[in-house]
Each structure stands twice: as structure tokens, then as C-alpha cells.
């Protein structure tokens, strides 16, 4: 431990430990837990995507399911109707999502904060309405499509697929926010005009992060629907789904990448652990109330709680210095 002097080194070490634990895990737990982890990891990927766009910049997205849904529907339609192989349809889906991401980018040139959140929400509601009305024969309408091809089958292969994607995306985004780009994004969140005045091309930077976020959402969304094997408007363009992503990010700690991952794991398992004891709707009441209390007590999330905890430990153990 003493070799790890800088926060960066300690962080990388933590990622390594996380990776090793996650690789070994499926051999220690039952299939049920493994399956829950797959869902937790997909939620984490979506949370990362949200965090990149909104965690630091103040451009709060209430329409992330819109982006995820574009990715999901693109690959679903291409494979289901045109029988494209997944190796072509998934990259196409990612590309389409990035094009969809520009729909978020243009409003972001003019408006921010609450207004931006509402435009993105309107996008989600709009596409929810349209998917059901326009060409229901192609999209499957309200019922959606079932029997989509899968990339790999079974709990364990899907676990490792999701893990690889999560680790690569999570780690690289985590590194990214440690560069001057991350600092600039935080600065945008505080005072965009000042950042612009300091000579940084804010528009370019925003476009870059929006595209990165859309890339993550598109890839995650495409893999997710092939894991589910089905797609339906209510599963994607839904306030409930948005709610899970938001709560995972904010409960975990927005703007930190690792926080949202922790949040996603925490939420998924909270619900699954409650299931055998409280199978009915009380489960969601408890889960919601718990999330609300935690969030109101600490709006900076689990990440902050853990950081404070470590800091306190650091104070108790004089050998280590708190960051």
C-alpha cells in the first residue's frame, strides 16, 4: 500500500481489485446472483453514459432512455427484419445513437439546466408516442419485438461480456475525467461563459462529451436488448427506466464515474435482496423511500460518503494521508 502515493495510483489499484473480484465472482455465487449482476452492469453502463454528459456539465439529461432506445431499436430492427449479423448491426446502432445525440446537442447550444432537462424529456415522450403509432408492424408497436438474436447465451458468458464492456468504458471515462477535460467539464458546470472567455472551445468540448455519452448509451443499449432478447417501448422509453438511471448516478455521486457504477450495483441488489422477504409492491416503496432519505442526507452520493469515511480512517491512522 505504501507504494501507492498519488490518488491516481490508488485509483488504478482500486480498479484492478474491482476487476479481479468481478472476474472471480461468478464462480463463487449462484446463477441468480450472476444474473442480477448482468442487470447491474448494464445499468452501470447507462449511468456512466449519463454521468459523462450530465454529471459535471450541468446539462441535465432527462432523456437518456431516448438515446439508449435508439441504439436498442436500431439493432433490433436490423437483425429481426433484415437479418443483419450482430457484428454489423451493433456498430450501426452506435452510429445511429451518436446521430441521435446531436439532437440533444443542438438545444444545448442555447439552453441549459432545467430547460435542457425538459427538452430531453420531451424527446423521450415524443419517441414513445411515435414508436407505437408509426409503422407498428415494423416496430412491433406497444408490444414490441421478441425473439431477438443473442450475442452469447447463458448467465456466465453474458456476465463476462457485460463486464468487459463495463470495465473498458468505465475505466477510460474515469481516466478521462482526471485529465484537463474533466476539469473543463466541471468548470462548464459552474460558469460556462468564464470557460469560454478563457479561450477553451466550449462548443467543441460539449460536442465531444455528448458524442462520448451517446456512444456509451448506444453500445450499452444495443447489447442490452440482445441480452434481454426482446424490446418494447415500455421497457425503454419510460419514466421508470429514466428514474433508475438518475437515481443510480445521483445516489452514487454524479460526476465521478465510479459513483454511478456503485449506485447502479447498490440499487439493483437492494431490490433483489428484498425480493424473497417482501415480494410485493412494498419492495418499491421501501426502495424509493430509502433512496430518497439517502439522497436528501447526502446529495453528493455514496461516493462522497465513502470518501468521507476514508478520510476519517486516514485521520485515525496517521501513517496515511488523506487526499
Amino acid at each position, binding site marked *: 500500500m505504501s507504494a501507492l502515493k498519488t490518488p491516481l495510483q490508488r485509483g488504478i489499484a482500486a480498479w484492478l481489485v474491482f476487476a479481479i473480484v468481478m472476474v472471480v465472482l461468478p464462480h463463487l455465487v449462484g446463477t441468480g446472483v450472476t444474473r442480477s449482476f448482468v442487470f447491474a452492469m448494464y445499468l452501470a453502463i447507462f449511468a456512466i453514459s449519463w454521468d459523462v454528459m450530465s454529471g459535471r456539465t*450541468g446539462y*441535465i439529461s432527462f432523456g437518456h432512455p431516448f438515446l439508449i432506445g435508439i441504439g436498442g431499436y436500431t439493432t433490433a430492427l436490423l437483425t429481426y427484419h433484415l437479418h443483419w449479423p450482430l457484428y454489423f448491426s451493433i456498430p450501426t446502432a452506435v452510429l445511429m445513437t451518436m446521430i441521435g445525440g446531436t439532437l440533444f446537442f*443542438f*438545444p444545448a447550444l*442555447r*439552453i441549459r*439546466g*432545467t*430547460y435542457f*432537462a*425538459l*427538452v430531453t*424529456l*420531451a*424527446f423521450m*415522450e*415524443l419517441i414513445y*408516442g*411515435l414508436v407505437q*403509432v408509426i409503422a407498428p408492424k415494423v416496430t412491433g408497436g406497444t408490444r414490441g419485438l421478441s425473439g431477438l438474436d443473442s450475442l452469447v447465451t447463458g448467465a456466465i458468458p453474458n456476465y463476462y461480456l457485460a463486464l468487459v464492456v463495463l470495465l473498458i468504458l468505465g475505466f477510460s471515462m474515469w481516466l478521462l475525467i482526471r485529465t484537463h477535460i474533466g476539469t473543463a467539464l466541471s468548470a462548464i458546470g459552474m460558469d460556462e461563459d468564464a470557460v469560454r472567455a478563457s479561450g477553451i472551445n466550449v462548443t467543441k468540448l460539449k460536442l465531444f462529451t455528448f458524442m462520448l455519452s451517446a456512444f456509451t448509451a448506444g453500445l450499452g443499449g444495443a447489447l442490452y436488448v440482445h441480452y434481454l432478447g426482446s424490446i418494447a417501448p415500455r421497457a425503454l422509453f419510460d*419514466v*421508470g427506466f429514466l*428514474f433508475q438511471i*438518475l*437515481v443510480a448516478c*445521483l445516489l452514487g455521486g454524479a460526476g465521478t464515474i465510479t459513483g454511478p457504477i456503485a449506485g447502479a450495483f447498490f440499487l439493483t441488489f437492494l431490490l433483489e435482496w428484498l425480493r424473497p422477504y417482501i415480494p410485493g*409492491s*412494498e419492495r*418499491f*416503496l421501501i426502495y*424509493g*423511500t430509502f*433512496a*430518497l432519505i439517502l*439522497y*436528501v442526507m447526502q*446529495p453528493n452520493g455514496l461516493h462522497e460518503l465513502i470518501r468521507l469515511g476514508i478520510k476519517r480512517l486516514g485521520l485515525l491512522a496517521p501513517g496515511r494521508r488523506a487526499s
Partner: protein
Amino acid sequence: MTQILVQGLVLSGFYALIAVGFTLIFSVGRVLNLAYGSFLMLGGYIYYQGAQVAGLPKFPSLIIAAIAGAVFGMLVYRILVKRLSGNVVAVEIATLILAVVVQAAVILIFSPSPKSMWPLVPGVLRIGDASVTYNIFIAAVTSWVLLGGLFLFIGTTHMGRAIRAVSMDPKGAVISGIDPEKVNILTWAISGSFGAIAGVFLATYTQLDPNMWVTPLIIAVAVVIVGGIGSILGSLVAAHIIGMLETITTSLIAAELRGVATMLIIIAVLLVAPRGLFGKSEL
């Protein structure tokens, strides 16, 4: 033609009633109360419990619902919003979580099955060749009365002027001796009771169900966006634009595009005039 005009007007008045409580909080506190739909739902369920289960007369049940709405509004402010004050995003997220929690609680207590309710005032009103139910007509009239009352209250009373001062410039208001705490509590109470009353009308007009908080929230958000922050008059005009647009879309173009039209107008207004058509910085 009369039909569209009458129905559009009545629906617009009803939408104004739904939106006004939401506008008020947005104007004074600059926060979106995403739990606003829960005020309506709560109002509807309490009225149902009073008038249809316990068998109380309709008017006292409505008053009970309004009082309960005011209390709930104050509690939300005290317990959630005040704690997170200064962090607009945190308030929005916390109220959104609250809305979902309230929904879960309602499912648990009242079951997720929808319930229809007796109209507050039964019967059909015929104006020329147009017909509207008394129920929604009364809702529109209530809306005009409440909005007029609110307008007078803000324009003429001491407390009303304090609300206006806070909505213009919170810091300046404090300097001039206004207690912003009092103003906030009052606006949340008014918002809660207006929401609950709107909820009773919404529920008697459509039905009670645990998802009923979403539609009024979207209507309120649309009205605020189109009307702009801080303008009760703007909200009134915006409610009429949206209400008429919906009625015209439903009767003349295609009924299934009702929601789509509203979403398109939100996006258009936000892009063209982000502050809304009548946005200004005061009430």
C-alpha cells in the same frame, strides 16, 4: 365550430387550474416541483375516500382535500426542499423520487386498479350546438375564480407583495425585511391546495389511478415552458394555447396526435424562446 371553441375554452381553463400551482413554485423558488403531480393524485384520492367511501357531502370533501394538499405541500417544503435549497437539480431529483414513492404508497393502500368517480356536478351543459359536462365547466370556472383570487392576493395584500418581491429578487427581499421562509411556506401551501383541488376535478373527470400524476405534470411543465417563468398571466395564456391546440388537433386533425402536438410545441418554444412567450423575472 362552436363545439371546438367551447370545448377548447373549457379544457384550457382546466389546464390553467392544473398548472397554476406549479407555476407559482417555479416563479418564487425557481425550482421545478416534480412531485406536483402527487399533489393532484393525493387530492383525488382523499376526495374519493371522503365523498365516495365515507359518504361525506361533496363540498366538505373538496375542502378536506384542499387542506390536506396544503399540509402536504408544506411538509414537502420543510422536509425535502428546504434541506436542499440552493441546489436546483437536487430539488428536482428529490421531488421526482418523492413522486415515485407516493405512487408506490398509493398502489399499496388503494390497489393499482383505476377507480372512476361521480362528477362533482352531474349533467351536460348545452351552449348552442355544443355540449360540455357541468363538471369540466365548473372546473374551468373554479380555475378562473382561483386565478383571479390569486391575482388580487398578490397585487393587493402585504403578503402577496412579499411573494412578488421574493420572486423578483430573493436577496433584495431579505434586505427589505421580508422573511423568505414564510413566503416559501405560504407558496407551497397554496400550490398544494390548488393542486389538490385540480386533482379532484381531474379525477372526477377522468379516473383515479396511481399513474395519474404523470399527465398533469406534463401539462403543467408544458404550460410553464410556453408561458415562461414568473407570469401567472403568461400561464393563463399558455394554458389556452395548449388547450385550444389540443382540442383542434383532436377534433380536426387526428386524435392520436394529441400528445405529440404538445411535445412539439414544447420543443419549439424552448428552442425559439427559451424563456417562454411571456417570461420575465417577476410574478
